Structures are given as structure tokens and as C-alpha cells.
């Protein structure tokens, strides 16, 4: 039975077809593999004869909130990858949901770690450019400047000075 997946991440989408327990086709190229579970969500993985260590971070409760239900977070030889894995049904479902949702042209910047907002550097309605300082988040004894990821207008500020925030809390929404 053919099983086809779409894997996206790192600005790329690949089509992956699992042929059997030791061969796979990725973007029309056939590769051999073996995949052995070790302890605690770690795996020994061989692809075309080359060995890699794999850690399944998702199974350890890690979820950055950025990859959603169909995402996988894994370490390959210690390097972290967040990839979205869809099969044909989940892609279909996603496209249905997307067509119903209102088109959104805003991006919400979230706290990358728990900390204390010590200063807001912008105001609602202000034009901001990529790299502009938005606010100061204090954590680990350091004052960290949260910078603007893309050009736009400040639509909403979700925090005030001296607000303690959790990892993933919304900070500022930018509208294109």
C-alpha cells in the first residue's frame, strides 16, 4: 500500500513515499534506510549506509507551539529540525480549513522564554522595520531586546511594562 507524505520546513517541501521497511523515495529518488528504536525516544538511523542519531523531541513533550499538530521536532546528530509532516488526508483537511479562515496579514510575536517585560519601545500604529527593537525582556540576568521579524505596523501590544510573561505569550502583533 502506497503511503505518501509531504514534509515541509526550512523553506522547502519534499514528497516522501515509504515503499517498505528499508526503502523510501524522496522527491523521486530512491534511498535505503534502517531505523532502530533505542531507549527514551532515541533512534539509530541509517540512510544510504550512513549512520545518524535521531532524538524524537516531540515524544519528550517538547512542542514549541509553532509547528502544530502535524509537526515533528527531532534532533539529527544533535541538530534540531522542526518539520511539518502531512499525508494526503491531512493536507486536504488543512486546505479546507484554510479556505474558511479569514485571510490574515498579521504576525504575533511571542515570548521566546519566560521573563519580565521591562520596557516597551514602540506604540500602536507605529511603522516598524525588520530588526527594530520592540521591547525589552529580562531573563537570566540579561536584558534582551525583542526585535521585529518583518516590516509592518504595530497593531496591538499585548503586554505592559513590568508584565511577567510565559514562554509563548503574545507580546506584540504586527500588521503588514
Amino acid at each position, binding site marked *: *500500500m502506497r*503511503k505518501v*507524505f509531504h*514534509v515541509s520546513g*526550512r*523553506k*522547502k517541501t*519534499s514528497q*516522501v513515499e*515509504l515503499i517498505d*521497511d528499508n526503502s*523510501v523515495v*524522496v522527491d523521486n529518488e530512491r534511498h535505503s*534506510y534502517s*531505523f532502530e*528504536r533505542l531507549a*527514551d525516544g*532515541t*533512534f539509530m*538511523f541509517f*540512510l544510504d549506509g*550512513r549512520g*545518524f*542519531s*535521531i*532524538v*524524537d*523531541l*516531540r*515524544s*519528550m*513533550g*517538547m512542542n514549541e507551539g509553532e509547528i502544530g499538530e*502535524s509537526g*515533528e521536532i*527531532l*534532533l*539529527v*546528530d*544533535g*541538530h534540531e*529540525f522542526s*518539520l511539518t*509532516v*502531512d*499525508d494526503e*488526508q491531512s493536507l486536504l483537511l488543512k486546505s479546507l480549513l484554510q479556505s474558511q479562515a479569514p485571510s490574515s496579514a498579521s504576525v504575533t510575536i511571542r515570548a*521566546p*522564554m*519566560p*521573563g519580565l517585560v521591562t520596557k516597551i519601545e514602540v506604540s500602536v500604529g507605529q511603522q516598524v522595520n525588520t530588526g527594530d527593537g520592540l521591547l*525589552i525582556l*529580562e*531573563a*537570566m*540576568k*540579561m*536584558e*534582551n*531586546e525583542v526585535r521585529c521579524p518583518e516590516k509592518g505596523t504595530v497593531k496591538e501590544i499585548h503586554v505592559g511594562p513590568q508584565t511577567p510573561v510565559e514562554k509563548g505569550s503574545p507580546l506584540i502583533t504586527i500588521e503588514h
Partner: protein
Amino acid sequence: MTTKRQIKRLLIVNRGEIAIRVIRACKEMGITSVALFSEPDRTSLHVQAADEAYPLDGVSAKESYLNQEKILRIAEQAQVDALHPGYGFLSENGSFVERVEQAGFLFVGPSSRAIRAMGDKTSARRIAKSLGIPIVEGTIEPLNSEREGVEIASKIGFPVLIKAAAGGGGKGMRVVQSVEEFSSSFRMAQSEARNAFDDDRVYVEKYVQNPRHVEIQILGDHYGHVIHLGERECSIQRRHQKVIEESPSPIVDDKLRRAMGEAAVMAAKEAGYSNAGTIEFLVDANRNFYFLEMNTRLQVEHPVTEWVTGIDLVKAQLQIAMGEPLPWKQEDIRFTGHALESRIYAEDPRNNFFPSTGTLHIYTTPEGPRVRVDNGFRKGDLISIHYDPLLAKVVTFGSSRHEAIETMKRALSEFIVGGVRTTIPFCEFVLSHEEFRAGSFDTHFVSRTFSASELDRAEQGLLLPAIVASVLLKTSQGSILPQLNHVEKGSHSLWKKRREETYRPS
């Protein structure tokens, strides 16, 4: 001061890898190690490694590792002979050291007087200037007001650096490009300095363009004998904090080493300095050096000096504190090979080096020839926002710089951390970069060459295995659409079966 006194019990006023480093020296010298721990550190590795451990109760650094009263009370109760401060926290706090001295304990470090003279960056600049050691242009006294700072900065010309008088470790330091930026940078530097050192005095110096940051390790005993142990190259920095250090420096030859070493020894002698210390210099493109500041404590990067000189700096510190004379003369110090250190911080190099918090789900440190790991954590530990995010230091040695670099690349490939993001991929980027490998770089190397997309490029070769593995993980963990599970019944892959057989969520 000049009498010999044994240390039988040592209180270590620190946490993480440096506490463990000092505990190791204690074990080798037959000294009983006594650790302290904050509330979240109750089960930390340093607590387990020590012979005895006492609680500091609080959570924040201020309530715990900076709480002088509590620390001194524990020192009394535990009947220790001496305190070792490690680096950071109270290590360069003159008034704390004075209280330690007055309470009758030995302090494993310089006297409070020497700390005040050299640890205070403005006073150290004054001393260096008086000895004819070149210093970077700027203020000799701390700033009285923001306005004074703006005036001086305008006079010496932007960009300038605002620095904490009590500073170190890049904390309380800001680069200011223009008059407009001065006010906010001044306040940020002040508040960071207040939080980190309990002292908000700041000063201004000219921001030297494209410098190398080279420092000299010194050791002095209680009898006025001071030697230097060569240099460490520390130009690879992000946010003014070092990430990769090495000894020897690719730009320092014997002549420059001798000149910088002599200047460092002269400054230390002038300040009546004893124990281990480091004099930091900026070196410009023409190999002129300028006194920057002195760190009146053990440095994070001390292992590279230990490896090229064969001298155990922590043991030397303890011997000096016990009143032993230095067993070496300057001509006894020989340098062998090349040592390199990578600092592994819980930070996200893809996101502006923001601290990264979480549980260490996977934590495997490197092994093998010519690799030393000074590590403070283990699998399952929680990395919180409360303290410095340094997890471990990887130090490698080679008969040449090239060999040390290759060994480091190999060692870092073995270091697997899951649960928090770390500077490992960033260090790998540096070690593979042409400029670094050629030894021609300056303190702007990181801002000039590094971006998150560089990491994506370096990890390109891992993308295909990541893609295939992600599908295998997905299929081993069940259907993508749980509600359609029954439809799939007939098509269970081997991975699914294996999951059912071996994967039992607790």
C-alpha cells in the same frame, strides 16, 4: 596575611560547572567541599558532587547566591576555613570579600583592597595609566550623570562603549552609535549593572574598531611574587560575551607575549594583587595593545591556560590562599601545543542568542582523546531563567591549532542536547569558517559573518535524513488524523507495530 594556614573545609559560593571544577580540585587536595544551593538547584549536579551542601532557600540570584548574610551565616555554621567564589556572583564584590576577611575566613582570591583597586574598572584604568600602560581613550572616573556621559562621548567621538565600573562578562555594557541612542543605552547599562553587580556606576570609553581581545593570565602569591601564564585569545564574541577562546593567540608572537605579560605583571604588582587574575587587552591591527580591565577572579576560560602550561589554576589558587609561595619563576613557565574552548550556552543562535529554557531531555557530552568537558548539568535537569545560561565548556588540545580545531569539531559533533537550544551549532559554524581557521578575525567576527541562515546552510546535509526520519517518527506514532484511525486499520506499518510493542507512554 603572610602566615600559612591550612584549608580543610572550603565553601564554594557558586553553582554549575565552576562549582564542580572547584569541588574536583578539593577532592584531589583532600579538602572537604561544601556547596550552597538555591531552591531550584536542590538536586543540581554540584550539590551531588560536593561533600556537604547547605540550602540558600531563595530562587533568584539576589535571594540566593548573592545573599551575603545567608552565605556568611552558613560559612559560620559549617565551620569552613575558606570561601571560593568561582566567577560571576560575588567573585568581584569588594565589600563581600571584606566581610569574609573580617569574619576570619580565607578568601580564595585577591584581598578586598586589591579587588577594589583592580576590579573597579575606572580605578584600574587609573593605575594602568600611571604605570605608562596604554589605555583606551575615555573617562577615568565613573559618570556622575547622563549629561556628562553625552558630553564626553561627543568629545571622544561615537561610537562609544558604556561599561559598568563593577562589570564583567559583558553585563552592563552597551555600544552607543549616536547621541540619540545614549540615553536609553545609559539606562539599560545602569539597570543591568545594578541587577548583576548591585552597583550601577558606569563609565564611557572609545569603541575601538576591529580590535582583538587578548588577555593575560597572572598568578601572584602573598609575598609580592607575580608571574604570567601567557595569553588567551577571546575575540570570538556575541553580545560582548566570549564563546570561543584559545591559547596561544594566532596573532601573539614571543615578543608581544613578553611585552603584554610584563605590563600585566607590573599592573598586578602595583595593585598588591595576589591569587589568580586576568588582565584584558585590546590589540589593534598593528599589534598595539591597550589595557582594558582586570578580572580579579578565575576566568570561565581558564582551562585553555591549564592545558598549554600544565598548571592547575584552581589548585594554585588554593595553595596561594593557604599562604604558600608560588613554586614557579617566570622562566619555569613553558607553553606546549594549542588549546581551544567552546562555551555551550542554553541560547538560541537562530534567535539572536536568546536564552533558551526547558528540560534537558537528552544530554550526552563528548569523550575521546584531547577532550576535556567542564560540565554542570545532566539529563533531566531544568534550565531556568534565573541564572547564567552556561551549561558546559568543551576544551580540546592539539599539537597545532589545526589539530585543536579538528578535535573540537569532532567533540562538538558528539555533544547532543535535546530540550533547550544551545550554542553548539554556532560554535561549529565558527570552527568551519575560513577567517577563523586562518586566524584572521576580530571581535566583530560574529556580527559580520553570522546569521541564522548560515546554520541552515551548514545543516543542509542533515535535511534529507531529517525529512525521512520525521516521516518514520510520524508513522511510528500513529495516524495523522486520529479520527480516521479505523480506516487505516489494515495498513499498519512495521513502525506502528513496533510502536505498539515497545512504546509504552508512562
